[in-house]
């Protein structure tokens, strides 16, 4: 099953189970989403529950939160994560805080689904800002790297009591993978080991998981054994799985597509080192520049297999 189909399936099942689930977003209707990840939902559930919205990210999230506190379970689709910036006020200043500020009188079971990452779309359609969200108490943040997790995490997100940001990735939609035919939920807060290895732990998420696995495969030919951990959940972080692995390998490489400064890797490194004394750590992320749509410059900016291999080799120099 393709990643994009896994998303549609998760939404379809949850919308069947629960009348309160509805989908709001730009071009979520008969168009079926910018990456065909919503195909069929509009036909099945109609325009009441699958609603095209104006281009108004702030109000889209605001309306989503408002509907959530009043009893619905909205999924708001923000086509590009860059434009989540336009809706951070309702997400961060309201949704993430409403349970706290009302002392539990209200809660906001809202899922914001958004697409991160670079795929030749330029400076304002390529960013990965999930690290920002990791510093927002009250939010949960997940990022699937496989069709099975796209399915399982989205379903789990829709059963949460509070707001969840579900991050997918332009380059993942056309990837394929097994998804169990039976209904299942991927627990939020648990990482997954994608490949076993003994020399170094690569901790990553989303599309970069594929890059890490590819790098690991090629490094195996050099005699370097990489364990690849797909974080899946960024808030909360599954430190235990990362540390179990790193305790064995004694070396941790964090890999993210976004900016490394104050990024996912910086956080993971800090917390892993609190647990594991003397752990060797390096990080790989985008170069400190905007992501151009230019094929040469985009490729140079974001991490690729070569850079990961290089970083692993370098980390393992005694």
């Amino acid at each position, binding site marked *: 099953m393709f990643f994009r189909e896994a998303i549609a399936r998760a939404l379809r099942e949850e919308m069947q189970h629960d009348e309160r689930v*509805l989908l709001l977003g730009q071009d979520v209707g008969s168009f079926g989403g910018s990456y065909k990840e919503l195909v069929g939902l509009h036909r099945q559930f109609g325009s*009441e*529950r699958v*609603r095209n*919205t*104006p281009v*108004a990210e*702030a*109000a889209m*999230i*605001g*309306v*989503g*939160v*408002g*509907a*959530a*506190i*009043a*009893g*619905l379970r*909205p999924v708001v689709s923000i086509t590009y994560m860059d434009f989540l910036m336009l809706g951070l*006020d*309702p997400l961060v*200043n*309201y949704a993430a805080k409403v*349970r*706290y*500020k*009302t*002392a*539990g*009188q*209200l809660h906001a079971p809202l899922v914001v689904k958004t697409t991160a990452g670079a795929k030749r779309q330029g400076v304002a359609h390529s960013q990965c800002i999930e690290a920002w969200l990791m510093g927002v*108490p*009250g939010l*949960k943040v997940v990022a699937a790297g496989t069709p099975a997790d796209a399915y399982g995490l989205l379903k789990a997100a829709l059963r949460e*009591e*509070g707001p969840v940001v579900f991050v997918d990735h332009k380059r993942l939609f056309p990837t394929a993978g097994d998804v169990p035919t039976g209904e299942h939920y991927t627990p939020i807060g648990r990482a997954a080991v994608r490949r076993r290895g003994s020399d170094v732990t690569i901790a990553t998420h989303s599309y970069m998981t594929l890059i890490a696995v590819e790098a690991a495969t090629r490094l195996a030919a050099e005699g370097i054994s990489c364990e690849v951990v797909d974080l899946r959940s960024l808030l909360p972080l599954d430190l235990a799985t990362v540390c179990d692995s790193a305790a064995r390998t004694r070396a941790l490489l964090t890999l993210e597509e976004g900016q490394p400064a104050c990024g996912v890797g910086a956080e993971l490194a800090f917390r892993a080192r609190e647990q594991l004394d003397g752990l060797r750590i390096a990080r790989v992320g985008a170069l400190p520049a905007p992501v151009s749509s230019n094929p040469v410059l985009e490729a140079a900016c974001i991490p690729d297999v070569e850079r990961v291999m290089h970083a692993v080799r370098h980390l393992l120099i005694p």
Partner: protein
Amino acid sequence: MKPDAVELLRSMMLIRAFEAALMSRPDHGFQLLSAGEEAVAVGLCAALTADDQLLCSGRSIGPALARGLDPNLVMAELLGKSAGPCRGKAGRGHLSQPAAGFLGAHAVVGGNLSIAAGAALAMKLQRRPGIVACIFGDGACGAGALHETLNIAALWQLPLLLVCDNNQISVSTPRSEALAPQRLSDLAQPFGIPGATVDGMDVLAVRDAAQRFADRARSGSGPALLECVSWRFATHSTSTRDTRPAGEIEAIKARCPIKRLTAELEATGHLGRHACEQLQRDVDAAAAAALRFADAAPYPDVSEVLTDVY
């Protein structure tokens, strides 16, 4: 004149008395007062039922009390006490009691507009009988949130009543310096949403206009925008300096919505001087009781810093 006018008067007087009591506790930090603008909240709430929900800006004391929240609980919340409906976590600016029809305050200017629309969407989709009302200031009319909300509310015909409490100032900035439109209710026009501008110092005018729009929304005919032109008596917050000349403030205070309704009721024989004094004693007593209640209540335990985050 409708028979409930005395009730409206009492409600406005309670807000005024409550705020006076609150002001005797400056040690609790600044507050955003509603004095001068009582008629907007009270007139609007007279048009709401128990099925409805009200949201408002950080200037929330008037709306909360007008909506019928227990003054004791409101006072406790404002003073940060755990007897408040939000256990003192919300305090000023974020007060709420959804079970009492008060989804409540949000201190981000314009921030409650789209949230109110979302709540109205839920009401509509769940075929509940209520409507959603949202009070916001003139300041919020400069924010894009209003435009986005008007458009969505119109497209989806939401049961939403947007009420601009246009006190003609935002902190220190006069409305004329911040807003190009001559009448703020005109902002609804391009969207095909009905709008009206009423005297926000006249509680009956506010109530009648709100009633008309609320009935309309309740019957499924969609949103409306009601502008109530009011005057802020106090400074922006109790810790802010005023830039308005003292003479101007005196003139503003002369337009008091409470005095105005009192005079009308007395002139038409609906209220005697004695009954009026009794009302005053009642609300003063309620305010004093609220303060005693709040003073006696404890602060939340320090452990609550980490509760209800998720």
